[in-house]
């Protein structure tokens, strides 16, 4: 790899540092600083731009595996800058301006209430930049989207609709689609029409479940800000001020985990979570069924047929394994009994003639008795025949 991007970038870092300090000081002394909005969280941080610029320059030279992993680091670095820079600047603006403790509390409350509004979706104007500013907040959702991206259907076509307006959009959409879906299916293609209608209904159900799931994250976000506030107050009580960005970031993560952990163990969350997974599965299954019909029409083996074959093959294989195991057991038993016979000591020779003689005598008397019985019965049969005729 060429070192130039590193060198050039390193030379620029000092310049970024100077710019950053300028921005911070301007911000802190700003007359408007007393009422900070979340817009401030993402404003004028040259470090993020620097990171982006650097990564664009060097990433093509890295191997794909390194690129994937490093992208995560860069993304987290940006989230770190955004969260800590915004929060720290906002939270101590009063200090820089030499405000009283009471004024400081007010400033903190303004910042946190602004964050709460953002999570609650009441401030659509900040959806873009500020949501990005809270970057890692969306990690669970993004991971879900990636996990289910193998769906043949679009994942979440409503994801860019703001949280506050999602209910309205969804209702309108459902209302119109419901009208469409209520059209009675008739004629030769009736069944096909019904299947498409079901597919659309299932998709809407999934979208609704996904939006409800997204909405829970807005609620968790609000809780998270509340926990952060409590944790900050605790710091005051303990007289342990936060003196570094990393420390502030750690407190933010702790607050998020605490709020998240409390929320996701509630019945409400468990219900929404279950509905999210179940509605997606119902949608996918219906999609598979329709796909199977299309495959069947062009004489290609369907998913259902392949599953049947796999199931039968499984049964046959495991029956075979069971039989082999049984044969092994029988073999072992047979071998054991052979060994036992071989190992058995021979009977004493002196008894043999007596036994043989006794056996012969018994056989002879048995044979004599048998022949006598046969003779009697023959005589009886003959007598009987004679009588009949």
């Amino acid at each position, binding site marked *: 790899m060429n070192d130039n991007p*590193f060198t050039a*970038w390193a030379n620029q*870092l000092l310049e970024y540092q100077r710019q950053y300090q300028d921005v911070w000081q301007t911000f802190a002394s700003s007359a408007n600083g007393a009422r900070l909005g979340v817009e401030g969280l993402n404003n004028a941080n040259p470090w993020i731009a*620097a990171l982006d610029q650097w990564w664009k320059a060097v990433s093509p030279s890295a191997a794909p595996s390194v690129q994937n992993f490093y992208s995560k680091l860069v993304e987290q*670095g940006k989230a770190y800058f955004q969260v800590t820079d915004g929060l720290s600047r906002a939270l101590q603006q009063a200090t820089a301006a030499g405000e009283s403790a009471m004024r400081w509390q007010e400033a903190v409350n303004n910042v946190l209430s602004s964050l709460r509004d953002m999570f609650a979706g009441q401030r659509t104007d900040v959806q873009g930049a500020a949501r990005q500013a809270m970057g890692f907040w969306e990690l669970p959702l993004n991971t879900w989207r990636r996990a289910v991206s193998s769906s043949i259907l679009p994942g979440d076509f409503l994801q860019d609709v703001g949280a506050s307006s999602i209910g309205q959009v969804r209702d309108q959409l459902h209302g119109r689609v419901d009208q469409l879906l209520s059209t009675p299916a008739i004629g030769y293609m009736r069944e096909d029409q019904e299947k498409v209608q079901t597919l659309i209904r299932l998709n809407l159900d999934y979208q609704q479940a996904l939006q409800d799931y997204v909405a829970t994250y807005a609620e968790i976000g609000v809780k998270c800000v509340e926990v952060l506030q409590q944790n900050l107050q605790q710091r005051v009580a303990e007289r342990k001020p936060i003196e570094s960005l990393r420390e502030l970031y750690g407190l933010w993560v702790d607050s998020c985990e605490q709020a998240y952990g409390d929320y996701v163990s509630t019945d409400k969350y*468990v219900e929404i979570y279950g509905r999210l997974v*179940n509605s997606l599965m119902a949608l*996918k*299954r219906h999609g598979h069924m329709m796909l199977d019909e299309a495959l069947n029409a062009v004489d290609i083996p369907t998913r259902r047929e*392949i599953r049947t074959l796999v199931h039968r093959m499984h049964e046959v294989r495991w029956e075979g394994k069971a039989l082999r195991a049984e044969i092994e057991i029988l073999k072992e038993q047979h071998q054991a009994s052979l060994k036992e016979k071989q190992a058995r000591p021979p009977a004493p020779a002196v008894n043999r003639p007596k036994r043989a003689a006794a056996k012969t005598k018994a056989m002879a008397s048995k044979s004599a008795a048998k022949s006598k019985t046969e003779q009697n019965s023959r005589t009886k049969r003959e007598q009987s025949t004679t009588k009949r005729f």
Partner: protein
Amino acid sequence: MIPVQIRPDRAAKEMLEFNQKLGLGLKNLINIGEISIGATPTEVIYREDKLTLHRYQSPFGEPHNPVPVVVVYALVNRPYMADLQEDRSLVRGMLKAGQDVYLIDWGYPDRADQYLTMDDYINGYLDRSVDTIRRRHGIDKVNMLGICQGGTFSLCYSAIHAHKVKNLITMVTPVDFQTPGDLLSRWVQQIDVDLLVDTMGNVSGDLMNWMFLSLKPFRLMGQKYLDMVDLLDDEEQARNFLRMEKWIFDSPDQVGETFKQFVKGFYQENRLIKGEVQLGAHRVDLRNITMPVLNIYAREDHLVPPPASTALKRYVSTRDYSELDFPGGHIGIYVSGKSQKTVPPAIGEWLDAR
């Protein structure tokens, strides 16, 4: 007092240092090359379908315990976690403690395996692996060590085939699947598992990862990577981190039928402790476990909370039951420096004494 007292110059310095570390770290990362996994050489003893039974070759000479121990790992994730690297290896620690160690690798199942049941795994693959070891050593019983879900499998196996297990060790093993604080259990209660498996066939490893990472998303998907940047200038530490990262995302798909049985029967209906698990012709009754049992759990386990594991003592009939409480998490119990010093030697001593 004002709780946030970050000076602008300090903030700028922190960001500068972070960017510098990120830049230098990439140089190191590029030079690291391939990340190796598995520290101890093994010999393949038995194969069946996708299962491989390994025997570890001890660098410490002949084992002094004549009864080998077979490690039964979970179907979730890969078993090389037990032997991640030389200085973080449960297996190596056990070899050092004089044990003869075998390990079952279940492999990566695909669609052809989707109808494998727990009966097939436990009374089929596992039983044949145990028989192979018994025949090889000319012994009636082996020692068994089950990890996580593998521990639950080991319990089922030992309850059914008690005559083949001399001593049983369970590590971070769920027994009671509905204890308070078991988030994983809470989440799956409303999931229609029949529908899920009918739709997906096998359950994708990505979906499983999402569920596990969602237990602590901000720490596991965010903060962890930030902390990593601090380690990037140390090549060895970076290598360790990447090795762990590789393991975390090396998630085999879960066989549909077994997943269904496990989630429904164990998590949703908690049948194991009720004595209602049926595996083929066998009913699993934990009271049949009369051999000595060592139950190891992690105090800060977020996947299998301690009460889910310690419930075991109430359901087994053995008179020789011990517990080992490890001060760490679900993964730390295998790989942390602390665990290397305590867990494998404790296992060795416990086995040697029986």
